[in-house]
């Protein structure tokens, strides 16, 4: 089970949501929404610190009974949240990090597209393909 979501500031509305499998989607949406608070908390805690590549990855936001939530924030305060099944113990931190990195890179590619207005929902096929391949890898 894997859910991706990308939220953009300032209102934190989601730009992209993808989940595999597709049932219980609403529950995941809710989880992600609540985890946004945690993300904001972590961001504010960093304060004026240098925004490193390291610090972009927020790590495990909070583990619930069924699943874990990971967060990642970019320099432009765009948040990536990933919800993973707790039973999926094979997923290590490094892999999560690399997934976030891939997401970030694809996101920047989308940004480069002049036809994309920041704040729009993401419809890019390349992005979809990348996310699909990532999810296939995990599940």
């Amino acid at each position, binding site marked *: 089970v894997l859910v991706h979501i990308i939220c953009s500031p300032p209102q934190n509305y989601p730009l992209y949501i993808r989940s595999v499998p597709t049932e219980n989607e609403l529950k995941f949406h809710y989880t992600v929404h609540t985890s946004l608070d945690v993300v904001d908390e972590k961001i504010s805690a960093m304060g004026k610190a*240098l925004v*490193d*590549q*390291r610090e972009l990855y927020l790590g495990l936001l909070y583990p619930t009974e069924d699943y874990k939530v990971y967060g990642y924030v970019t320099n432009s305060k765009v948040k990536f949240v990933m919800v993973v099944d707790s039973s999926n113990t094979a997923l290590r931190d490094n892999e999560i990090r*690399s997934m976030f*990195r*891939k997401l970030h*890179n694809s996101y*920047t*590619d989308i*940004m*480069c*597209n*002049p*036809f*994309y207005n920041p704040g729009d929902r993401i*419809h*890019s*096929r*390349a992005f979809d*393909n990348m996310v699909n391949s990532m999810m296939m890898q995990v599940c």
Partner: protein
Amino acid sequence: MEQGPAGGSAPAAAAAAAAAAGTGALLLPLSESEQQRYSELFSRCCPPPEAAAGGSSVGELFRASQLPPDTLHQITEVCGAKRVGYFGPTQFYIALKLIAAAQSGFPVRIESIKNELPLPQFVALKNDSEVRYGTPAELHGVKFQVPHPSLEKNSYKRTDEGDKQEPKSPPMSPICSPPASPSTYQRIPLSYGYGKSRSGLEQQHGAPYEVRHSTHQQDGPSSGNYGAKPALACSTLNRSLSGEREQQDSSAHYSDDPWRITEEQRDYYINQFRSLQPDLNSFVSGSVAKNFFTKSKLPIPELSHIWELSDVDCDGALTLPEFCAAFHLVVARKNGYQLPETLPETLVPEYLQAASLKLVRDCALFDSYSESLPGGQQTRDFSRTEKTSAEEVPDSSALLQDGKKDDKQALKASTDLKTIPKEFQHLTVKTAAQESNTLKARPRSRSYSSTSIEDAMKKGEEPPTPPPRPQKSHSRASSLDLNKIFQQNTQAVRSGWLPPPPPALPPRPSLSQTEQVSEVELHPQMNRPLSQAEENSSAKKEVVLAQPPSKPARRKLRTETQGLETPELSPTISVTSSLPAIKPHLPVQKQSSKQKRAIQTAIRKNKEANAVLARLNSELQQQLKVRNALKISDKAPCNQLCVTSSR
């Protein structure tokens, strides 16, 4: 029992389904009379030896049914002839059934023919070879969905039939001139691969041989059809293109590939590129390209997808080959072709770059990729290393641990674009060309870099610092590599500078003593005039004046350090202002003034090195912090353990 499909509502779905039906045994319930009539009609259209009905006669027959043209298109689509490329018996029968259905007022669907239908009625069959399916009114439609059926009808034109529609281009051209974008989007012909309409539906890029072959024979009709495309009226250019392509029988010929750019198209694209950006080696920025392509009136998501496909390096700007690819995709889309999911091979920038550079150099025809000359290979190197070098440059400038990279930077501005044999120089030159234009275009370091060079670099530079922008006017600064400057710095200035720089290069050949002596004289003179500090501007001027004699200059600086350490620093600021003062002193000694300039350059280099070292320092301090933090964190659990154990 019928081998009927599920029957989607869209003709495409029906076509696909009908294709399934068509390929198998025909299981339509045909009544006696129907069968008789159909076979009669079929034999009429198709002389017995042949397996398929002749396109023209089929066309006549259909027209004789007096159905509206788009119904006929639908029928051909649904019956599967479009898909297989000819009217086989199955397709023909299905088509007849559909005609009957249509004439009875049923919609053109596969399900319709399941019912009992009367025989299709055909008015007196004409014998004119002119087959005009599209009425001018229809083809004049400005929506690009309209041309799609007209594309399909071409699909069943026989190769052996010399069917030619009337050249509709004359009446078309005035209408087809785009209302909104008169200048940019003139007719782009896509007269090849008409069968693409079918393959477009199926997301294929190759059309069956027969169809393509037929398209070659149509000059006028093709132009007429494509003349309908909004904002892309193709008339004369189209005809000339189709005329230039002779009857090519090879089925996989490159010119049949709709994703291949022909000569004329390429020239057109290049001209358009020039109109946006005069320098062909440089980029078209994203916003400019966006405005340009928006004029094509394609929907934004499609344009977005086209951009994604064509901007392979994802830098928000289009090089010439990328631009050609994007333009070509736009043209293809406007002509009704579906956009591919990935960039076709022939539109990949390396391919296009090789081809375009070949064109430029050799004025050769558009050959296949494998035939590219060494020139093309060189450019392939260019493009291949383009990415790596471009990525390298901003990153490498941040790190001065590797002297080689400095060389690259230095070389970059100094070498000429055309005279480079080695790949190493390819890197630098290409980056010079690009860097002068869009250094900011590649600020990101990617984790999934394509080359090992990038990987190696990225490992060493996690904390991103803004790279010092190398001066554009380096000009023959290969001699002024920064290692020399480090060497000078360590020896010249011992005022508590940063840790020693990496090992310097072996010393350059020494100069005559006289030169050194004259330089010593210069320095005191330079010390005296102290005017306003225009450091940066003077630095830049010095760079411009940089000459090979700067080597001796640096050597001198090193040797005369003892006497002139500190005074050297301050007056260097005001060097240019002192220059006019000095020159009257030494009017005859051109060499020494050159040397002076060299010194100034060297001084500026020093300053650059200072800045770089300062940054290096900050990076190192950061790393120190990190390590300390780790050490502390490592110690912490140990401490706790000790505490607990002590209890």
